[in-house]
């Protein structure tokens, strides 16, 4: 019995029963979490309940009274995944402000809202637009810095760059790179395709793939540090 209890996951509230919310709830149930899905449209709520069982609450997940009925105060996490950014923001803010939910996650359509949401009561933002853009950028042969993963809570992220031929860091050891605050080069993959944890003496070559950890707000500076061309020399 205890093992089953220990296996019992978190209490997770999903706001929004569209395609994203539905599949999310389904996966979470399969992963043994306690799930409650809040859906505004009564017909849709009923359809989901027919399929997933008695885990659906019909109502507006931005309303404090509905969140109260959902037992939000004991929720470990609230995932706001409606199709509208403003509804997701408000659901997260009400969950934080009134019910002190530890972790709130908002689905975002307009990637420009990401930083703004995180400044407010949203711990994690997930944007399909950004995810797809990141994939496209990885495919492009241009000198982009792509974000591989955002680390939980700390504001740090792992990024990847390919060093262009004209970069100022070409043929320079790692210790000479002027990295922004809290940034580190953690992995260098050379032409041979072998991963290497760099030391200060590791020399960077054109075409190397470099994985670094940085703060989201330092991305621009890091891009500049690794990708900007060497300044023209005057003789």
């Amino acid at each position: 019995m205890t093992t089953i209890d220990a296996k019992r996951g978190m209490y997770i509230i999903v706001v929004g029963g569209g395609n994203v919310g539905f599949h999310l709830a389904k996966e979470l149930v399969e992963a043994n979490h306690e799930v409650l899905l809040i859906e505004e449209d009564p017909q849709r709520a009923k359809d989901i309940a027919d399929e997933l069982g008695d885990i659906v609450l019909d109502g507006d997940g931005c309303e404090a009274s509905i969140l109260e009925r959902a037992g939000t105060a004991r929720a470990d996490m609230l995932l706001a995944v409606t199709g509208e950014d403003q509804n997701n923001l408000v659901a997260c803010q009400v969950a934080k402000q009134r019910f002190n939910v530890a972790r709130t996650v908002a689905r975002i359509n307009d990637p420009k809202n990401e930083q703004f949401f995180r400044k407010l009561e949203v711990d994690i933002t997930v944007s399909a637009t950004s995810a797809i853009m990141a994939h496209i950028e990885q495919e492009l042969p241009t000198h982009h810095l792509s974000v591989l993963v955002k680390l939980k809570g700390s504001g740090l992220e792992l990024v990847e760059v390919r060093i262009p031929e004209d970069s100022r860091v070409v043929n320079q050891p790692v210790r000479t790179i002027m990295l922004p605050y809290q940034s580190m080069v953690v992995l260098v993959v050379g032409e041979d395709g072998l991963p290497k944890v760099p030391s200060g003496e590791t020399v960077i070559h054109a075409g190397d793939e470099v994985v670094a950890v940085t703060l989201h707000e330092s991305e621009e500076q890091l891009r500049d540090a690794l990708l900007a061309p060497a300044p023209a020399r005057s003789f």
Partner: protein
Amino acid sequence: MKVVVMGCGRVGAALAAELSSEGNDVVVLDNDPSAFRFLPDDFRGTTYVGNGMDMDVLEKIRVGDADAFVSTTRGDNRNVMAAQMAKHVFGVKVVATRVFDPLREEMYRNMGLRTINPTRVQAKRLKHVLEAPSDEAAHELVAEFMRQEDA
């Protein structure tokens, strides 16, 4: 003073018209161009078709230069999101918004927005009008409400 009014419904339009007639530089935003019909013919401010929750739109109308921002759309969530954007992203000093849900209104007020909840006030006033002893008394009550607003 530069003021941005988001939502050109009856309330937004009346507010924009009044602010403009007092000599303020007013920009009215609405998704729906036909909403501007609520503005008086002699409105001297600017109208802009666009979504007030879109950072690009707010950038374009230079919300950052505004002294005040007010959101009066029909959606509570739209209103508070745009208001917070104006305040926290663009640094607008005075931000006011209408919130129909009393609980949400209270919450955002505590979070530093200037909020107004028309629901309670209107319900109370409607009750007074309903319970007035005669039609004439009801009309007099409404006139009294208007005088209070103008004062």
